[in-house]
């Protein structure tokens, strides 16, 4: 039987210790599960040593933990092989890695297609690549409710389109991308597909093979694991074609004073000492996630999202930024004319409601939606109806307080 949100909440030490807290900012950072904390502590107190360097038993234990974590991440994503898993410091680092290493295989005039809905992490690295190498950077527009507008997708993939790099799910509107349509068009155009899964992986294990994509990026801290760790999955043949991003220890085949040759992936992309304990913690988190019945969890998250959207609709003047229904994640952003999101969030905090206000590192999207900033509530598996009721009551308090 799937655990209730109440019993799930008990598994998160911070939430268990703060029963009054209504944590609705999991799209920024999810709370860490006890198994991830325990795994970090256990690793650091029983197996702490550097990886890929030592022949003593402690180092071998560290190697085993680290490479087992690679297996866990591969299972979580249904990858063909653990060799397709590159550990990074987070989704941003994963995306920058692709922008540099895959970007190094591009020529001036090659096109990369992203979207207006991207988090700055999947926008700025491509602008930087454009400015370095002269690639063309094209953007898929968004509809009025923040969905990717795929009407002119074939034209946008014209020219020498080599990569489509888009979000799996907007961190502002919650709109889910029609990945199948993107992949089908990209295949016709001969382009690879990168999916920014920063907001996707939190809502259940992924199947990168079924999606037919080439790269997938996500962060540990949004998947109930530690911060400072993330994953880049790349199709083996795609990774094999890419030169390294960072140079250093661990990523070489041979080094002479004159030149170096590179290790095979994934080590080619893991220069220096990786965040070993965090990787182990992330593995524990995704192993735990893989034990859950996600259909039931998604149903509950969707019901809370619906409850919230219906409640928000009763607030005069409030504008929802994002789809009312349909394919969406439980990330709900809104604008109340005359009230600044920072003021809203500050007053909500007095009622133990943790929400985020601002541009959410998605300024082009907000500009397209005609907003400068907004307030965002993001729902995860430990949230329940009481959180949504508290938020709706809290917004009533905000209106009275700030009017």
């Amino acid at each position, binding site marked *: 039987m799937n655990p209730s949100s109440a019993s799930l909440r008990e598994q998160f030490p911070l939430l268990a210790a703060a029963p009054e807290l209504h944590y609705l900012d999991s799209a920024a950072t999810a709370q860490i599960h006890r198994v991830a904390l325990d795994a970090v502590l256990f690793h650091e107190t029983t197996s702490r040593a550097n990886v890929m360097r030592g022949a003593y038993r402690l180092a071998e234990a560290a190697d085993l933990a680290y490479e087992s974590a690679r297996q866990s991440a591969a299972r979580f994503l249904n990858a063909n092989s653990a060799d397709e898993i590159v550990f990074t410091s987070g989704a941003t680092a994963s995306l920058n890695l692709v922008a540099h290493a895959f970007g190094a295989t591009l020529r001036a005039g090659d096109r990369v297609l992203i979207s207006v809905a991207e988090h700055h992490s999947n926008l700025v690295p491509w602008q930087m690549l454009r400015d370095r190498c002269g690639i063309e950077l094209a953007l898929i527009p968004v509809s009025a409710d923040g969905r990717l507008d795929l009407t002119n997708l074939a034209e946008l993939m014209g020219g020498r389109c080599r990569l489509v790099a888009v979000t799996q799910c907007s961190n502002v509107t919650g709109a889910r991308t029609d990945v199948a349509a993107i992949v089908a068009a990209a295949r016709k155009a001969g382009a690879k597909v990168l999916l920014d899964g920063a907001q996707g992986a939190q809502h259940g294990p992924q199947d990168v093979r079924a999606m037919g994509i080439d790269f997938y990026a996500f962060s540990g801290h949004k998947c109930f694991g530690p911060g400072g760790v993330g994953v880049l999955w790349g199709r083996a043949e795609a990774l094999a074609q890419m030169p390294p991003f960072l140079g250093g220890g661990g990523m070489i085949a041979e080094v002479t004073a004159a030149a170096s040759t590179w290790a095979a992936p994934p080590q080619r992309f893991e220069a220096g000492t990786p965040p070993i304990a965090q990787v182990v913690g992330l593995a524990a988190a995704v192993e735990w996630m893989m034990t859950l019945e996600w259909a039931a969890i998604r149903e509950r998250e969707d019901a809370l999202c619906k409850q919230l959207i219906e409640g928000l609709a009763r607030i005069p003047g409030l504008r929802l930024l994002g789809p009312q229904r349909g394919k969406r994640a439980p990330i709900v952003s809104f604008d109340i004319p005359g009230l600044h999101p920072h003021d809203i969030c500050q*007053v909500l905090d*007095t009622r133990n409601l943790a929400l985020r206000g*601002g*541009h959410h590192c998605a300024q082009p999207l907000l500009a397209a939606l005609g907003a400068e*900033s907004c307030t965002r509530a993001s729902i995860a598996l430990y949230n329940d109806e009481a959180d949504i009721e508290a938020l709706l009551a809290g917004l009533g308090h905000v209106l009275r*307080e*700030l009017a």
Partner: protein
Amino acid sequence: MSDADSLYQAAIKQFAQAAHGHGQLESATGEAKLDNPLCGDRVRMQVALDGGRIAAIAHETKGCLLCRAASSLLGARAAGMDAAAVEAVSGELDAMLKGAAPIPAAWPELAMFVPARAHASRHRCVLLPFRALIDALRAAGAKVPEGTHRAGAGDTANAAGLHGET
């Protein structure tokens, strides 16, 4: 009443609502635009200098109540000040917010921001208009003391001398 409730006391709301100095100057000699990229607060500050002193000030402020109240306060009070005086009160306000100094004696209205001491993430909201004014004064050719705020420490800036003070 909790501290954040008291953060939004009547004085802040009144100053934000009054929006003293809101608008643009036709005779501006310097202007600066400052953004707080974290929260989207945005201040465009214009000044016209006469003999090194602020003859006129105007601003367009999009932001939270704290930022708007601070801009409005400057709109009401800054005329007649020179750059050194603006820099001095800005520094005193910064210190007050950090809890290291009392309310500046010459600016008792700044008492409305004392509850923001407890919220470090909001200090920049209050300071942004002051920083924009200093940048606008600099753009107008005023001599701003060394060590004074220069945009770049977290804020993004665009300052320009307009007609220039001759």
